[in-house]
């Protein structure tokens, strides 16, 4: 049976490497600073053997746009939810995960763009 890692457990692990990166944590998720996203994911790759991007989407809340990542480790059968919040609605930017997982390609670069219109920074291989 798959195990959903608690947001607190993941937050503790992230803080051990990137003390300022965690913005919010709960039982179900951990929200991190968008600028630290790549480093956080690299840390999770190393420490939790996270190797699979299950799902990537965005939710438009009134105060911010939230980008949601469901990540998992196929070896350990663990899952976790990672979030990045963009408070600047006029210029929402989140780094692309393409350098780590090619699976982000079509999920980030959907045509027509995903709802809401969170934009991703261009990366070398993005179309």
């Amino acid at each position: 049976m798959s195990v959903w890692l608690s947001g607190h457990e993941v937050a503790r692990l992230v803080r051990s490497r990137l003390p300022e990166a965690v913005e919010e944590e709960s039982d179900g998720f951990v929200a991190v600073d968008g600028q630290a996203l790549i480093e956080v994911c690299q840390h999770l790759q190393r420490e939790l053997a996270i190797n699979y991007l299950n799902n990537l989407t965005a939710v438009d809340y009134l105060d911010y746009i939230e980008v949601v990542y469901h990540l998992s480790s196929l070896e350990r059968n663990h899952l976790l939810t990672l979030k990045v919040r963009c408070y600047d609605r006029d210029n929402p930017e989140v780094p692309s995960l393409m350098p780590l997982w090619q699976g982000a390609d079509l999920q980030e670069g959907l045509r027509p763009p995903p709802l809401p219109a969170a934009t991703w920074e261009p990366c070398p291989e993005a179309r």
Partner: protein
Amino acid sequence: VKSLASIDGLPVQTGEPVVVNIGPQHPSTHGVFRLRTVLDGEVIIDVEPVFGYLHSSMEKLGELRTYTQAITLTDRMDYLASMSNNLAVCLAIEKLADIEVPERALYLRMLMVELQRIASHCMFIGTYLNECGAWSTPWMYAFRDREKILDMFEMSCGQRLTYNYIRPGGVVQDVPPEFTISLRVFLKDMPNRIAEYEELLIENEILIARSKQVGVLTRERAINASTSGPVLRGSGVQFDLRKADPYLLYDRYDFDIPVGQVGDCWDRFWVRIEEMKQSLRILQQCFGEFVELPPGPFRTPVDWVFNPPPDREVYVRTESPRGELGYYLVSDGSANPYRFRVRGPSQINLTALREMTIGHKVADAIVILGSVDIVMGEVDR
């Protein structure tokens, strides 16, 4: 564009690259889908999947409907596996709203989704062999068996394509007595049918020539590209959500996870044939218990309109015939979802298409696309 063309490792005379659009109107693109290919002679040096022609805003429409109404949208995404879509969204809704499901409904759901997997893989065999150049004979054989499953679905819910059968709390109605008779006959006949497929196809020289070492996707790249289902397992990754994260009654039954060794089109084809056998194993075990079940409730009464608790979100994933079918629902306490996100395996499996196709001939691109087995309703949504 820099030319990279070579055949068997030997450089070939290259000319100016030519852009050729395969689709959006093309019989082998499984719907309205465009492969923008860059060719050097007959060799593909770059490819870009272009989709969105069938985009129908189903995620947004789902947010404007009640949870029960949204099920009808899922029928129309992966219309070759509507039962699997019904199931995935209902599991998500039930988790979001804490709805229990009676045991009889679990059995009915098991029977339906495993029959659906066989029907979907039958469709794959027909279309894939078509794309390999076998024209309509294998298609007719596969449709012969798929029709029997559709007959059973029609007995259960009156529909042959868009079922809307699985509902929050259970299923819409119990199956009639003739369903049991038909399923018993089907389970007796189908192993022979699959043996017939194997006899006709597995050692078919043309199929092997068109599939072996074509569209190779390595294990590492399959994982990195988030592929799932038969594409992931064809590349040698033994991962099936029915085992890894069991739902319904899968943890009660014995079945194996077939995996490929090379990750080529042949392995993806073979994995699906083997999966049909495993689905039959599951069905035989499940049906044996189902016929012994006393009559009972098939659905927990749930209001047509209900409000799940606010500020709650779930991500529920199931193993559909095409891979990981996930639903991410966010509730704000109202009668309709605040966010209705579908993780469609068809779409995400296309991520690896470029890698599988570059270096092959144009005719191979059609076979490779066929081996991914996409449904455009789900890709575009």
